[in-house]
Structures are given as structure tokens and as C-alpha cells.
């Protein structure tokens, strides 16, 4: 059974290594600040005992005040999982670091989030619209579209 790691403990461990990067944590997920996302994620990928080498899914949700990105991480070796979140408070210019260099599986998913929600990812090699054509105006999945 894939063990969903107690996020509070992982958060405590991360806080010691990267002080000031955790925004909040509860038993289900860890919310990190978007500037330190990449550093934290690469630590989670390579740290012994954690070794999250499989990025199962990236989702983005539009809560009217902020965008929230949810990363479902899994470790194939230890068979445990973790939910990592980050928030982005700027609606006009939503920017989040891209995790493509760590997990290439993020490639198309981040393009989809850019296409449908308008969140840009810095460091993405090919950030273009993926489902809609390049001249499309607006980002359909946002709550204020239609």
C-alpha cells in the first residue's frame, strides 16, 4: 500500500534544511513558497529515505485570491507518496518555477496549466499552448473566463 507520508514530519525535516521555505503544512500536504520550490523539490528527489523519483501528477486550481499548484510525488523505491503545494498570488503575472529539469513528466502538464490557466513556468524549455491554438485569447479554466 502506498504510504502517504505524514506531511508534518517531512515538513519539519525540510524546515531544518531550508529554513523559511514552508508556508504551512498539515497532515495531508506541505505548502511551500514558490521561490524555494525548485530547491525543495530537488532535495525531495534525491534525499536518502525520501527519493521521490516519480512525479505522478501536477494540478492547478483557481481559488479566486490565488492559484494553487498541487504536485503528487511518489517514490517507486520506498512506495510512499507526498503532496506538495505552492501558491501564486499574482493573477496577472502568475509565475512559478518549472520542475521539468527534475522530472520530465512535468513537461506537458505544465504546458497544459499554462494554456488553460495562464500560469507561466520559468525554466520550461518549450512553454507554448498545448491544446488551444497559439492565437487564442484568454485562459479558459480560470474562474473569471465565461
Amino acid at each position, binding site marked *: *500500500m*502506498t504510504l502517504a507520508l505524514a506531511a508534518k514530519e517531512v515538513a519539519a525535516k525540510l524546515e531544518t534544511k531550508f529554513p523559511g521555505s514552508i508556508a504551512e503544512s498539515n497532515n495531508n500536504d506541505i505548502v511551500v513558497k514558490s521561490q524555494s520550490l525548485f530547491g525543495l523539490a530537488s532535495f525531495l528527489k534525491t534525499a536518502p529515505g525520501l527519493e521521490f*523519483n*516519480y*512525479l*505522478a*501528477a501536477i*494540478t492547478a*486550481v*483557481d481559488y479566486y485570491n490565488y492559484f494553487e499548484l*498541487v504536485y*503528487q510525488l511518489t517514490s*517507486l523505491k520506498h*512506495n510512499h*507518496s507526498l*503532496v506538495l503545494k505552492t501558491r501564486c498570488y499574482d493573477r496577472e503575472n502568475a509565475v512559478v518555477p518549472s520542475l521539468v529539469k527534475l*522530472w*520530465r*513528466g*512535468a*513537461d*506537458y*502538464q505544465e504546458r*497544459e496549466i499554462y494554456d*488553460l490557466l495562464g500560469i507561466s513556468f520559468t525554466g520550461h524549455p518549450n512553454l507554448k*499552448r*498545448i*491544446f*488551444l*491554438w497559439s492565437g487564442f485569447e484568454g485562459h*479558459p*479554466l480560470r474562474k473569471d473566463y465565461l
Partner: protein
Amino acid sequence: MALKTEPFVLNIGPVHPSTHGVFRMRATLDGEVIVDLEPVFGYLHRGIEKLAEERTYTGVIPLTDRLDYLASMSNNLAYVLTVEKLAGIAVPERAQYLRVIIAELQRIAGHLIAVGAFLNDCGAFFTPFLYMFREREKIVDLFEMVSGQRLLYNYMRIGGLSQDIPEEFLPALDKFVQQMPGFIDEYDRFFAQNEILLARAKGVGILPQEMAINISASGPVLRASGVNWDIRKADPYSLYDRFDFDIPTGTASDCYDRYRVRIAEMRQSLRIIRQAMEQLPSGPVKSDVPRLLRPQVGEAYAHIEAPKGDLGFYLVSDNSIAPYRCHVRAPSLINLTALREMIIGWKIQDAIIIFGSIDITMGEVDR
């Protein structure tokens, strides 16, 4: 004196007798060899995730049918599992066993199409495709018995199934389970050692294990690359931990191994169905769930092993009758991440085969 050549760009698709759905690949060719490839998606984008925010939780179930329209039952199952996790609903045992039987039947049907279409791309001119459709017809007949539909079933409900199985289902299923191993042997006899198929598919389109994990591949693509990861064993849902089955893996990570993994998975599915039929209890098939379900505020992510791979749903609820956000983790889209690496260096004919061996459905890729 070297011959002056110049690469030219060829558009494979979107309307093409071979690509499985509307999918376009912009290939740059140098003679016959592909030197660059850019996949273009979006021809079947219908905005299912946005539509889901306007419908009740039960009303999203027919939308999920249309994701991977060749394996609708699995899509339904993934979605209702997520809603049940979100709202904390328990499912009666009979419903869970029936869900397992139906999901495994769907897996066999999905793999039959995948293998048939793959062999069709190899050029065997529909003969294996039609042979496999003969078996798929039997499965579709079984599904018609339970749900009244042949393609988009809309059968699962939050808290169980929409209706119980009719009387003639179990005898027909028994007959199918007894005949099917013979047919799978027949396919092995025809195609597994075919010289031309071996020459076309062995060593072609290799996806190394490290890359497969890095691109979050799942399903037969991941297992053919040698990774022993199956959600049914790693993170069991719906009573899969009560059944005894193996996970076939491949060693060479090429198209041939993906084909072999799918054939072997069909045999394992039959094993699971036999065990589930023996253990099937009686009882209700749906727990009592209000018509307009209003889950608590929160979120949930649940995933299953669909025929194409790891299909997951992420639902956010704000205590209203419609989901606040419904996101689909589409295995077909993510499996395509390495398409460029797998195809570069091969010829157009190989590109078609490699693409066919990944086994995607555009409904799921584009949503």
C-alpha cells in the same frame, strides 16, 4: 564529394488512417530517417474539466466516459473512487467485487484493441485486428448485458454500481473466461514468432528505464521498460489485495516488449476474474448516497491502473453540488512525453509503429 541533401518537413496527421485519433506529428526528415519530431495536440480538446465544474457529481460520470472512450468503465471507476474518497462513502462488498470483474474485462478489451491496432500498423492488413475484435465483441456483449450500452457505459455510480448484474451475466462470463485463454494462445501462435513482426518491432523505439521513470510513464509502457510498478499491487484499491496475480514486465523496453506485456496482462486479468467470480458475495450494489451529493470542503486524489496506465482524478470540493475543480491525470498524454526521443533516428514506418505501441487515445490526451 558529398551529396548535398536538405531535410524536409512532413506532416503526419491529423487526418490519417493510422494515427489513433486526430494527432499530428511534424517530422523533419532527412531522406527516410526522422531527425526531429514535434507532436501537436489539441484537435480533440472539448474542455471536459471546465464542463465538470458545471455538473453535479453524478452528472460528471458520463463526461468521464468520453475521456478514454475505448475503456469507459475504467474512467468511471477512477472518478467514483475519487468522489468516494472525498466524501468518505463506503461501498458494499458485492459492488466492489463486481467493479473488479468489470475493470479487468475492460482491461482485456482495451489491450485487445491496442494489440490489434499495433499489428495493423505493422501492416498485417486488419487480419489480427479483426481476430481480436471477435473476442472484444464478446466482452462488449457482456457489458451490454449489464449497462445496456456498447461503448460509453456510464455504469458506475458514487457508492456502487447503477444496477445489479442480470442473471445471464455470470454464465456468459464463465463461458468467456473458459474460452479466452485458448484465443490468447492462438494469438501467440500466430504473431509472437512471426519473422516480419520481430524484424519490425524488436529493438525499435527503446524507452530506457531511467527515462521512463523520469517522464512519469505508467502502464504497460513503464512495465515494458523493466519497472515493476502496478497500482493494483503498489496501492491497491477496490479489494485488489485479495487477489493473486503477477505483474508481467519486459526487459528490452522496445515495441515488441510492450506488445508481449499487454498479451501477458490479458492472461493475468483472466486469473483475477476467475478469483473474483468465486468470491462474489451477495448483497446490495449501491450504498445510500443522496441524489445531490454535497461533500465536505476538501480535496482528494485517487488513481487506478487503467488499461492505458495510471489514471488519476483530483477533485476539490467547496460543499456545493458540483465539483470546484476536477482534474484528470491522463496517462496517454504523459506517456507521450518521450515520443520525440523514441522516434528520432528511425524511419517513418517505425514512427507509426512506435506511436502505436504506446497505445494512446486522443480523448484522454486532449480531454
